[in-house]
């Protein structure tokens, strides 16, 4: 794939919430990039910070939350430096958002047509007739039957799946370059989910939109995403091409996530799960955030935060795990500092990692000293 200018380049973003006990970092020093036509998936458990990440990009973070550090570069403009008015002009227009719950995100007091035309009125020069034409066009495109009639309906007159189509229509109304979707199918029935996923994929290809899709569902990721970022406790722990990662996950958390997805080929009696629960963001462990649940954890993991290693021989694939010591590292950042010499000493000799279940030789092979 050619390296065109990215539509979105997030650099070391940190979003924190200032609560009584001190600032809590929901998004800790994370970076990502999305290009035209590309779909980036962000995957993680509840509370991993993935929604906050998305909302930060959109500028929807309010008191007591704030963007504490980093840059969000949209087509060369840093969104964190933008005035309120300038940002408002981008929202709904160049960058759009799709929420998880369609019904609660539509105003019950106005028809869907009204709501969409208002978005068009805010960002385009179309006159009233033209706006309504566009509304019918959009509703039709989204597969809503009898668009002229339905445009005069109120949100509560739609089913969940239809309401989400309306929300997507609203998001696409002004032909954005970047679409941010926060678990758009999680609140819908399974059969409807598939429809919406297909719909979004088709629309994305048709309009060549850059998209970030936040989800907890690996299946969706497999189907729709080109790139994948795996988030845990506010940190992106692995980031790279979807197919590469699915074939050969480089971070234990990713591996565990993939392992926990049941397939029809599984024959065991129990589901694979990840022991334990994600840590409270106010109370993160020292060292690697995943160390309490990681089957490969070592002493070094308890005392040192891993840097980002470039793995799999590719510059576009990174994992934040000490298993990859020896691989080239990304420049040090707050959440992924350079390791010092003492870490070397604590690294156990080969074959003595505690509690390792799957000593995948492929991974271990890369850290031979």
């Amino acid at each position, binding site marked *: 794939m050619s390296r065109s200018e990215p539509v979105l380049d997030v650099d070391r973003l940190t979003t924190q919430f200032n609560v009584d006990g001190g600032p809590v970092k929901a998004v800790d020093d994370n970076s990502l990039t999305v290009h035209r036509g590309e779909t980036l998936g962000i995957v993680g458990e509840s509370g991993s910070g993935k929604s906050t990440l998305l909302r930060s990009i959109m500028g929807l973070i309010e008191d007591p939350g704030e963007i504490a550090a980093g840059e969000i570069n949209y087509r060369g403009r840093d969104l964190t430096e933008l005035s309120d008015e300038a940002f*408002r002009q981008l929202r709904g227009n160049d960058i759009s958002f799709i929420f998880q719950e369609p019904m609660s995100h539509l105003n019950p007091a106005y028809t869907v047509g009204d709501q969409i035309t208002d978005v068009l009125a805010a960002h385009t020069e179309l006159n009233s007739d033209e706006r309504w034409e566009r509304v019918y066009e959009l509703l039709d495109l989204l597969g809503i039957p009898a668009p002229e009639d339905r445009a005069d309906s109120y949100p509560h007159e739609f089913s969940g799946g239809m309401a989400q189509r309306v929300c997507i229509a609203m*998001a696409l109304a002004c032909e954005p370059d970047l679409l941010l979707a926060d678990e758009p199918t999680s609140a819908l029935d399974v059969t409807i989910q598939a429809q919406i996923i297909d719909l979004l994929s088709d629309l994305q290809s048709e309009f060549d939109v850059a998209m970030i899709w936040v989800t907890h569902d690996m299946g969706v990721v497999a189907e729709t995403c080109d790139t994948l970022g795996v988030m845990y406790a506010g940190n992106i722990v692995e980031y790279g091409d979807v197919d590469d990662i699915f074939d050969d996950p480089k971070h234990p958390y990713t591996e565990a996530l993939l392992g926990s997805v049941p397939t029809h080929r599984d024959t065991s009696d129990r589901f694979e799960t990840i022991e334990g629960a994600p840590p409270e963001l106010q109370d993160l462990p020292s060292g690697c955030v995943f160390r309490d649940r990681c089957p490969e954890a070592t002493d070094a993991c308890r005392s040192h935060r891993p840097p980002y290693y470039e793995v799999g021989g590719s510059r576009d694939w990174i994992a934040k795990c000490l298993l990859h010591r020896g691989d080239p590292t990304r420049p040090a950042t707050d959440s992924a500092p350079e390791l010092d010499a003492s870490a070397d000493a604590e690294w156990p000799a080969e074959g003595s990692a505690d509690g390792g279940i799957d000593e995948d030789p492929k991974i271990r092979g890369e850290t031979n000293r």
Partner: protein
Amino acid sequence: MISSRTVQYLLKRLGFGVFIVWAVTLLVFVLLQISPGSPADVLLSGGVVTEEMRQSVIEQYNLNEPWYVQYFLWLKDVAAGDLGYSFSQQRPVAGLIADRWAITFQIVGLSMLLATLLSIPTGIIAGANHGSVVDRLLTVTAIVGVSIPVFVSGVLAILIFSFHLNVLPSGGAGSGFVGRLTHIFVPSLLLGGMVGALMFRMMRAGMRDVLEKDYIETCTAMGLPRRQIILKYAAKNAIAPVLTVSGLWIGFLIVYAMVVEFVFGMGGLGRLIIHAVEAQDFPIVLAGTIITAVVFVVSNIVVDLLYTWADPRVAVGGSE
């Protein structure tokens, strides 16, 4: 927008309203029955009583019949427009009321108008700017507004504006459109201020609630201008609960309009009913209660209609 479902809903409400008015008549009638002293005495009180009059009252009101017959006959009279006879005033009640109701309802109307004009915009501003100086100022004003009884502010207003500053007429209802307006303006303003303070607080609370909702977040995410978000979207959502409660306030408004009238000596229903209570002149009080109940019911139905506009989910007969 007036779908058949809306019509159905309204018919239901209308039926309920009729039930309420009927129940009120029953309630008041029962009270009459259980009051100390015989009903004849109560009905006659306030006037000079002779034995013949007692007999004629008993005849007229069928007080020798069992109570349910009495009630039925009385109800028939009321439905035909005969609201009884006031002995303290020596006139039919219906006539007494007909002379005076206009002033009272003009005051009620103007008060409601002023209350809405004062409270809705300020409520929106206060709610949208929660915690700001403007918000605090307005809220404190509203609290004070609610705490001062209307007769207190009325008396003070008369003292200040009419006696010392000689700016406004101190009493009477005036005649002609302009005259009437100058006379009822201050009383209506005071009354409107009191109700407006309540409406303001509800509107403000409503705005606060609504601005936290998901669908307002959508507006921000779609890049709508803040002014539009607040004035077009949030305000409409926030006004729904205010509407529900405003039906109740009409009741308050009617009664306190009577008090204000009394303070300002305006010759409306207020003075009539208050003197009737003093004289224990039951027919007048009875009539006044029924009229109030009817107005209450009718305005509640109007409010319901308005509510279906503010929250379309209701018209379909259910809520999301």
